[in-house]
């Protein structure tokens, strides 16, 4: 994976995008089709964020094991 791709799929970028989606859904002004599209996007982003967090947690666990 290139550094550009790494940045695109970083936790920070995904989380920022997720926050934008949540904000937009809260602001209203969307049709049902648009809202559902954003909602589904948000669920996907949240899932990917959770996966990245679990990966990081696993890496920390490994480091702790190695250190002990």
């Amino acid at each position, binding site marked *: 994976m290139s550094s550009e791709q790494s940045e*695109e799929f970083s936790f920070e970028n995904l989380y*920022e995008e997720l*926050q*934008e989606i*949540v*904000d*937009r*859904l*809260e*602001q*209203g*002004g*969307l*049709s*049902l*089709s*648009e*809202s*559902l*599209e*954003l909602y*589904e*996007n948000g669920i996907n982003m949240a899932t990917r964020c959770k996966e990245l967090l679990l990966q990081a947690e696993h890496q920390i666990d490994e480091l702790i094991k190695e250190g002990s």
Partner: protein
Amino acid sequence: MTLRIGWYTTARGMGSRKLFAAVKTAIDSGFLDAEIKFVFMNRATGESESTDAFIRELLDQDIPVINFSSVQFRKEMGVARAKNSDELPSWRQEYDAEVANLVRPYGTDIGILAGYMLIFSPDFVNSHVLLNLHPALPDGPIGTWQKVIQTLITERKTHSGVMAHVAIPEVDKGPVATYCKYPIRGEEPIDLVWQNIDKSKDTSVLFNLIREIGMSYEAPFLVATLQQFARGIIRLESNQLNSTESIPIDVTKETLLSRGNDKSFLKT
């Protein structure tokens, strides 16, 4: 006279693309006398798979695409993402000014907001006629889609609808051009679902069904609405809606003609 349309989207998924496809099909078939002058996206190529797929689709159809990434613009300005607040950050006004410069040469009569992620700044909204869909009747519930559907359920409404209004700086409060009305009670199988919530108090199935019914009306409703503009039934004069008919115009009949007997929502 052919209606000149500008299309604004972030193209995050299939919902907004279906709205576009319905309008394009209506134009191509000769049903709607209109032309899509451009599709504007606040994303650059490579930012998202769904946007890239839509761009390829548009270019295959020789539709002009304007890409201008709002994320890149903000980062180049050295600004962090603002938290949700009532006031737009100042970079957004500068971004919208650039958007106005980009779309100006295309000369459009009306802009359609379809899955556009950003709220336009007051300057942009006041100088462009933009049409927005809201999933309720003109006298129906306001707020987000969840609030609208929950209110319909709580108040045990028999009908809901969708309306098209001109965007103004206050979200969902612009003048309503058209609306269509559809039943959410009085027909099987939805009546059975209403009966079930009386027993179980679980509204999730009913919530989803009302949402699916509503979604099945949105694309044909948008086509029927644009038809009113293309035929000159509704005219835009100095950003004001004018018509010989009483505004908002009920386009339920026209929407049903386009929609046909769509029961696809029953599969969900």
